[in-house]
């Protein structure tokens, strides 16, 4: 089933449309949305995460190969360390008042 799916460009076109929609949505939220800045930033980060998932699923075929479970665990672990690094650094360096 997966096989036939990947043999048609439809799958990729859907992915491309999604990524365009998400990009312009992020732009609109940033420039035009009538909401506070903090909320705008939160929304665009969420949109970026969706965009990430779109790339993984539609273009990168994350669910292929005979080790896909480990591929996904590896990715999640990477994201865990990435979040710890970014959030931890910001917390430590910018919110470090007594």
């Amino acid at each position: 089933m997966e096989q036939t799916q990947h043999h048609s460009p439809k799958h990729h076109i859907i992915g491309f449309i999604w990524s365009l929609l998400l990009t312009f949505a992020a732009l609109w939220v940033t420039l035009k949305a009538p909401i506070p800045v903090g909320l705008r930033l939160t929304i665009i980060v969420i949109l970026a995460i969706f965009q990430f998932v779109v790339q993984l699923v539609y273009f990168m075929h994350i669910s292929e190969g005979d080790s896909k479970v480990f591929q996904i665990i590896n990715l999640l672990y990477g994201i865990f360390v990435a979040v710890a690094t970014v959030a931890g650094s910001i917390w430590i360096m910018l919110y470090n008042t007594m």
Partner: protein
Amino acid sequence: MSSLFSFKMPEHGFFVTGEPMIYMADVLIVLVTLGIIFVLTYFKKWRWLWDEWLTTVDHKRIGIMYIISALLMLFRGGVDALLMRTQLAWPGLNFLNAQHYDEIFTTHGTIMILFMAMPFIVGLMNVAVPLQIGARDVAFPELNAVSFWLFFAGAMLFNISFVIGGSPDAGWTSYTPLAGNELDPGPGENYYLLGLQIAGIGTLMTGINFLVTIIKMRAPGMTLMKMPLFTWSTLITSVIIIFAFPVLTVALALLTIDRLFGAHFFTVTAGGMPMMWANLFWIWGHPEVYIVILPAFGIFSEVISTFARKRLFGYRAMVYSMVAISALSFIVWLHHFFTMGQGPWINSFFGVSTMLIAIPTGVKVFNWLLTLHKGRIEFTQPMLWALAFIPSFLIGGVTGVMLAAVPADYQYHNSYFLISHFHYVLIGGTVFGCFAGLTYWWPKMFGHKLDERLGKWAFWVFNIGFHLCFIPMYLVGLQGMTRRIYTYPAETGWGPINMVETIGAFIMGIGFLIFCYCVYYSARFGERDVTGDAWDGRTLEWSLSSPAPHYNFAHIPKVEALDAWWHMKKEKGKKKEKPEPYKPIHMPNNTGMPIVMSAFMFVAGFGFVFEWYLLAIGGLIGVLLCMLWRSFNDYDSHHYVSVEEIKKHEMAS
């Protein structure tokens, strides 16, 4: 940034001058180099060296080269340690001046962690892991050679600093702004940055290589929960390497860019944040501690189970506790700088997460003890190292929890209490683990055992020296002696304690020398290992002849249980199987690309160290060309081992 074509000299000249000890080192380096060249030429061994070793992609040989390098670095780092202990033996000595002392504690720390502990551990992984999982090599043998040679290039680059250009002197943590260009110009710190960078890239590749090997190349039937614990610890370590080393790569690159190209990441001016360096360094640095200790845990598990003649107690708990440690290792880094001035919330969070690590570690200690319980214990050399590890690590661990208590840390931090704590975990854990692993797998590597009597002498002397050196450090630390001071006044009253420490350090040195003699003696007279199963072992490496043939397994074994080889030995009498016919084995060719590419990397690194950009760019182009060459020429890089050759090997053993 100077121009592309300028080859400016460092302020103090190209060669380091003015120290009699350094001149002696110069002479020694020249003599040893000439000696090696003479021996190789006289015995016509150049061809052999190139074909059999320098271009090899065999994981067992790469492992041996890692271990030889690690022992050399242990010697270098050990000499540094003894020089420091001599200077501190008595108040007010001037054996080393302040600058020289700074340089030596910097190189001691950096070499011991990055160029001794890491390659030792990686070497043992190379020697044992593919054999333990029933594989014929690692997943990417050529990449494995690249890893080794990059490590070697990085180590050499770092090591030449003390005779060419000057050593780094800002501590192994290289904190900014002290390590920045304003306060510490010149090649010294550049050596640190480039040496670690090159070796670190090699380490990252090792992590990827071993993760893929273990996930994808296990013998049929070996499920994850039937893997030997050393393999498990290697798997977890690989995961930590993969996610921690990129942080080091970036941190080193940023400081290099600061120093060479005038950026402002860690500077005091233009909005830079010097403390950001400490933050990034320890995001890598703390996981690094687990990278060097977890494989040691794996080794102790193998050794204790083998010589207690029992299955390891609590196998699953051992695995889960390592998984827990790997995740926790990424959220505790701030405990290395509690006193940097964060608010109580941040310190509390990291204090608690640090203490949490004691739980899985405690689980492991109890499991080792319960494995020993009612075992038929054999006090061989590897077992002695493993048994000595438990109390040492306990002392190191408990003092670690004391340091994790934030308010108390304000008292302990930066003192000899801390120094003793991390030496107790790193020597008592990692170094003891390396020696346990080395003596345990020695027969597998070389086909003979290490002499028991001499080995035990080395063990006891080293151990007595170790405790004599480091127990007093806790005391003198609590009395207020801070780290990284090159001398102290007599009124402090620290003199006698320091003298005891220095005596202990020299006894450790004697222990190391006895070990070296033991290696020589055993090579000539040691008990030959004819069975391949020197210790009546439990895991698959002992099912092979010693040393193992280059293709490892003529038939890939079928695994039915944990401790697969033990299980096979027990089942042997019950069922008789017809031996299957041999089939040709597909193996990778040797290649000179890794060493050539690493040589270019060394040249590039040297160019950046001296800010000779033409040289640096030339080196980088060389590296790129090697990669391009490889991309176009990897289509027939394999050969088949014929059935006749396999038969010849298998008959001989």
